[in-house]
């Protein structure tokens, strides 16, 4: 479980996050939706400790993310897996090396054990026989899947996905969505996804948070999204052409 209490962040005069409080439950897929520039990415980057918040607290199963305490932050981060918008694979390393990297850094596994785990993770994301390929040699959808495989290489408790479907065709987007859903259920992890894709919301979302102008404007389940009276949420929904 991840708990946010009154999270605030400003850049110079502009308040980007205006006191967001919420709880992301374990085993659930939590979707953060909202238009570009309204603070979704800042919120996610704050949650993983890439941006220092000005006020409030973020805690992972009662462990508070403390920016001053780098060692504690590092401990929490080792339970986190993140799929970046651009995949953020190491371009100079092969697919196998990318997935193996966290294992090499944080485990005492032998090379054979690491290779078994890499193959297990790649198989989980429906990728096989791509171990020796480099990120520049695979498609955008495959990069996302390698990114997921790398994120789950260690036994993580929290999975963050920043725009996992951006730049992907609708079919590949559904494949990625289903993968995230399967992984969340199988490993019983807390998943948080930033997305604009309303299809994702209705397909896999358990808990939906709508961010508007840096504020938590609406929160509920996917069935509540369509029936909500929230004007801004409905405008966002209508712009997505979802019936």
């Amino acid at each position, binding site marked *: 479980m991840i708990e946010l209490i009154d999270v605030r962040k400003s850049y110079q005069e502009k308040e980007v996050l205006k006191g967001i409080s919420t709880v992301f439950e374990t085993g659930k897929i939590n979707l953060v939706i909202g238009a570009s520039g309204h603070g979704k990415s800042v919120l996610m980057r704050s949650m993983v*400790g890439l941006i220092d918040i000005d006020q409030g607290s973020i805690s992972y199963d009662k462990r508070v993310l403390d920016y001053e305490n780098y060692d504690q932050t590092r401990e929490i981060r080792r339970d986190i897996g993140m799929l970046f918008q651009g995949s953020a694979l190491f*371009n100079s390393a092969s697919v196998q090396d990318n997935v193996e990297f966290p294992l090499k850094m944080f485990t005492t596994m032998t090379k054979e054990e690491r290779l078994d785990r890499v193959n297990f993770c790649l198989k989980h994301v429906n990728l096989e026989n791509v171990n020796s390929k480099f990120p520049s040699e695979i498609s955008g959808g495959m990069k996302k899947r390698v990114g997921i495989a790398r994120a789950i290489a260690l036994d993580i408790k929290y999975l963050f996905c920043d725009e996992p479907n951006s730049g992907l065709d609708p079919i590949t987007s559904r494949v990625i969505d289903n993968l995230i859903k399967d992984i969340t259920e199988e490993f019983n992890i807390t998943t948080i996804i930033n997305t604009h894709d309303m299809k994702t919301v209705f397909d896999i979302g358990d808990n939906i948070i709508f961010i508007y102008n840096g504020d938590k404007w609406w929160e509920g389940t996917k069935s509540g999204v369509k029936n909500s009276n929230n004007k801004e949420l409905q405008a966002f929904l209508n712009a997505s052409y979802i019936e």
Partner: protein
Amino acid sequence: MSIFFYFGRYLLFLRSMFTQPEKLSVYVERLFAEMVAIGIGSLPIVILISIFQGAVTTVQTAYQLVTPMIPKTTIGIIVSDSTILELAPTITSLVLAGKVGSHIASEIGTMRINEEIDALEVMGINSAAFLGLPKILAGIVMIPILVIISIFLSELGGILAGHLSGVLTADQYIQGARSSFQLFNLQFSLIKAFTFGFIITSVSCFHGYFTQGGALEVGESSTKAVVYSSIMILVSDYLLAQLFLKV
């Protein structure tokens, strides 16, 4: 922003590297990879500039010493001392600031804009240490070695140029070089090389690490890395000379 802001940020960046490594064996592996990249990768350019540096210095020194009152061995003395004290460490380092420095800054800068550094941080890895420390250690080990090679090849270039142009014989050159040789000069040259190696790698890592924006900014970081490394090399060259050489 002021120079103090950047200097403070540079010092904090260096401090952030010196923490407990996540896994020493991975750092050692990276250190050797960087040593190969910096050392072996720079060898061809160092060989080329060193030979020509020695050759040109010999010919030009001979051109300036027109009077027959000065023995030919003096050319060997001047070229050898200039090479050991100044040309090999400084010119080689300035060239390496261009080659190694721009490579480091663009590599780390590209990782920054591709969110690869963010990915390292999210994994709980000290990205500054992981990316910077092996490069800095490799620089302070390999650049002095490249300078020693440069000294040797510059002397060789001087001997060859003297012989081919008929200015002086190899024996005269070597006699001159040996007569003025002082071990301290070589030690001082290595102190310079060590310092310049640290400057080139740390300044370049710093500029790459704090790249913001896109491909254009990576190019800017790369240029800044070369310019600031070169300036710092020249300033520290003067300061080291003042500090160590009793005039």
